């Protein structure tokens, strides 16, 4: 693996930075321009359709009761369905209908990254054009490797008390990791209990949609209720208010 090339690219979309990392196997050439163009266009289109800040987006049209039947796209249906399911399985901790208005923003980024990965990067891993690929959207990521490579992604979890330090580190082949916090999000997550409050929650899952929903829910639920609801089915790093890791 010593001669394989790790390439890093930045994409700006949805008002945030997306990091695309690919590993090109030894002796292979890969021109990333087209891939990056496709990823950028995809993410920008998702933003046009789903941004809660663009009055012309499908989501805003829907909120105003103006969405035409023709614009009820399969993607819109998919996001709506996933958002509703996420609310149900987290016992309402993940709430896309906060204040009575449909706002799927909490899942759109994770959903878009996962779908972009499946559509544009997974095929390049399956046909061995790339040894590994990852999309990291402002701290939430979907990563993958080809079947024959021994490359593993070295993933660190940020320390909420000192953003220049890592709290933990993982080796990942295929999978997803999402981290939610309280200090940076302007406290937009409504907490459901005062016990075992968390300042940061990191969840590993095979799909980013799942990891993202549960990381958000963990902040709302607190450690005890989160663990009861998820029944320890995920690998997590939960950090309490005193910077203690309360669950792994």
């Amino acid at each position: 693996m010593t001669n394989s090339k790790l390439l890093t690219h930045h994409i700006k979309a949805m008002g945030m930075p997306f990091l695309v990392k690919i590993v090109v196997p030894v002796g292979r050439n890969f021109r990333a321009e087209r891939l990056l163009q496709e990823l950028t266009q995809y993410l920008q289109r998702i933003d046009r359709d789903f941004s809660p800040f663009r009055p012309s987006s499908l989501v805003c049209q829907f909120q105003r009761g103006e969405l035409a039947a023709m614009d009820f796209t399969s993607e819109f249906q998919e996001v709506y369905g996933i958002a509703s399911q996420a609310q149900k399985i987290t016992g309402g901790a993940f709430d896309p209908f906060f204040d009575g208005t449909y706002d799927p923003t909490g899942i759109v980024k994770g959903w878009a990254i996962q779908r972009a990965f499946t559509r544009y990067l997974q095929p390049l891993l399956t046909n061995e054009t790339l040894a590994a690929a990852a999309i990291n959207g402002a701290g939430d990521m979907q990563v993958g490797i080809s079947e024959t490579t021994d490359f593993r992604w070295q993933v660190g979890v940020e320390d909420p008390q000192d953003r220049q330090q890592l709290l933990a580190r993982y080796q990942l082949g295929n999978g997803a990791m999402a981290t939610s916090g309280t200090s940076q999000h302007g406290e937009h997550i409504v907490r459901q209990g005062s016990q075992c409050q968390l300042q940061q929650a990191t969840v590993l899952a095979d799909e980013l949609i799942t990891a993202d929903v549960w990381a958000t829910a963990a902040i709302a639920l607190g450690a005890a209720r989160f663990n009861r609801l998820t029944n320890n089915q995920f690998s997590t790093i939960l950090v309490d208010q005193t910077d203690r890791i309360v669950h792994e």
Partner: protein
Amino acid sequence: MKKITQACLALIVTVAIVIDGYLLFFKNRSGTVQTVLSSASSSSTVSATSQSSATSKRQSYQNGTYTGKATATRWGDVQVQAVIKAGKITTVNVLKYPNENAHDKEVNSQALPVYKSETLTKQSAKIQLVSGASETYKGFKGSLQDALDQAEA
């Protein structure tokens, strides 16, 4: 005699071709018409992502309930149903079906985390990706992810 037979055969073949062509054309046309009609009137599906230019004119959907196609999620298959009044969506219902494969799989090749007590800073040079909640509003600039990327280059 030979000439007459040949002429007759030629005529028969020509007529057959014409009839065939007419039937084929007619059949195709009526088939198309039927498809369009059924999707416009009974409409069990509303999927509007990539409409062909011929149908991209705004169809006026009749009032009623339209059901989309099922999407598989980790938590079961969901199907979204829209109630349409005066061409606009007024209500959305979500139908759920159990999905036997909905259990979360183990993340492949995952190692146990190593914590900062184990001199993680020394190892962070090898880290390629950082998961965190802080980047959302400040961008990657100045973040640990950014520092690691620069070290990598």
